[in-house]
């Protein structure tokens, strides 16, 4: 059986060109495999500089690996050339970015994004059908076209806007979502609902989600499998709860020990 996504010894370095001798290995020799027909939340954990965003961009086909191969449903991404093939790939793999206020043009009504995606990516034609596709996608994230239609980004909260971003990604019925820090810019009272939405999309829509984060606590809450990256290298991987309950690699142990517990430790008292 072909895998949904397979990375084989993928590396990416930056620099080292004509004028610079220094090479930065952003991602070093990463291999992983996500199965077809087995929806899961696959979490990539790392601090800044760990290569997690470069990894996401390679999976999205925005950055080409320096070496190694990425195959999506059996197709090597390096063979995806031309607008038609590229669009067919983008239908299946959709991104969600960290800051929804940067992802949307502030001068453009948010429903335009949904309509454009429906028209270009999902080949929906006719105004009524396009509106219906947008509404269906919005309903699956707990919004509706009546609520967000005609609104500008600044008229929505961060949580609502991130839901719109997720709804947009769902329109072409992708098989894989790549979510790079999707909740780190969202307010605390709205964060839980976005994280819950990721779980729902896995269970209800059968989506596989690559969830990229630095936050071990939400990773523990949503993930099925996890990899922990440091300076481009995967230092530990496995079933998420097993890894986080009992990390083996010294770096994973350090990360876990640095997570601030929301319990008030005894000893902190009114000075």
């Amino acid at each position, binding site marked *: 059986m072909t895998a949904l996504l397979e990375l084989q010894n993928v590396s990416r370095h930056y620099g080292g060109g004509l004028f610079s001798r220094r090479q930065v290995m952003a991602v070093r020799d990463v291999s992983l495999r996500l199965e077809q027909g087995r929806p899961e939340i696959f979490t990539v954990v790392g*601090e*800044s500089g760990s290569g997690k965003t470069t990894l996401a961009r390679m999976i999205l086909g925005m950055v080409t690996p320096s070496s190694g191969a990425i195959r999506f449903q059996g197709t090597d991404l390096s063979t995806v050339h031309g607008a038609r093939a590229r669009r067919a790939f983008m239908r299946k793999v959709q991104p969600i970015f960290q800051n929804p206020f940067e992802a949307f043009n502030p001068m453009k009504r948010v429903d335009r994004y949904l309509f454009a995606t429906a028209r270009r990516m999902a080949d929906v034609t006719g105004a009524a059908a396009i509106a219906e596709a947008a509404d269906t996608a919005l309903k699956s994230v707990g919004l509706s076209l009546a609520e967000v239609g005609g609104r500008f980004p600044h008229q*929505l*909260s*961060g*949580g*609502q806007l991130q839901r719109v971003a997720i709804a947009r990604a769902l329109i072409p019925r992708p098989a894989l979502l790549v979510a790079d820090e999707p909740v780190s810019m969202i*307010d*605390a*009272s*709205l*964060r*839980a*609902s*976005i*994280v*819950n939405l990721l779980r729902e999309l896995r269970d209800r829509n059968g989506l596989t989600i690559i969830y990229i984060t*630095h*936050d*071990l*606590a*939400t990773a*523990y*809450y949503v993930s099925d499998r996890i990899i922990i990256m440091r300076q481009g290298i995967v230092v530990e991987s496995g079933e998420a*709860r097993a890894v*986080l*309950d009992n990390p083996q690699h010294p770096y994973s142990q*350090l*990360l*876990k020990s*640095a*997570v*601030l*517990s*929301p*319990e*008030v*430790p005894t000893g*902190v*008292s*009114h*000075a």
Partner: protein
Amino acid sequence: MSVLVVEGLRAYYRTSAFGVPRDVRAVDDVSLAVEAGEIYGLAGESSSGKTTLIKTIAAATQPPLEVLAGSVTFNFPSGAIDMQRAGRSQLAAIRWRHLSYIMQGSMSVLNPVRRVHHAFVDFAFRHLGQPMPRFLDTVRAHLQRLQLAPDVLDAFPHQLSGGMRQRVTIALATVCRPEFIIADEPTTALDVVVQKDVLAMIRGIQRELGSSILFVTHDMAVHANLADRLGILYAGRLVEEGRTADIFRAPRHPYTAHLIASLPRLGDTAPKAGLGGVPPNLADPPPGCRFHPRCPRASAICRREVPPLEPVAPGHRVGCFHPEPAP
């Protein structure tokens, strides 16, 4: 005596478009006091008014932000100062010497094209009143106390890591041994491992100097580990205030209770409910309690009247008509 006393503070952003006045009520009737030697945590989401509140406390207001009512008083050993009435020279005399700041973006505090020691000279030299060689010795001794190598003085900011830069700005904020420090999300941009060290450093220097800190962050886990007392802001109002341990053990305001219950914890996979609705628009806040449209306990009175912040236990105040039951 409290070092900082804020009474009935109202600060609005007043603008008018085509003759139609518009007020954004970012800080509405906030009263609080910070005691000597304590860390007072201020928690709130974006647009809860926390940045406006600290701007007003520091008398750094600029139009369209206006202070409509209330007072901010600091009681320093050199005398009390009313921040709203103080003149320019009075403010300049206490800033950095008695009242200093730690900001979120260390890169916007340190000049990117000048070496770090210039920042110390710019900020602190005139306050310490020492000749230059002695001043630099004082700075070096201070850095050593914070376990920073004195070499950082000769580095450019970009040569230091993010955590190191934030440590330098903490050294910068504490070199004059101020009585009061305002810290605005100082660890939000840092990685978790670095964040833990920086928090320990803030706690250490605060204990040593005996300063008070007003520590602002949206991150409740940071508050749990650092703050002695905690104030929760929602839509420009203080809705709950108490000892951190009390608030985490038994939050009384429904908003606080939700915030604490929804925090993800390592080792816990029990489903967490999200809070419905969205934070209100402060240009047109809902009448009565500003939380009532999202509140599971709201009743008719909540839609009509603003709940006053009242004590429910010693040192614990809550602004709610239907607080969560006491434990």
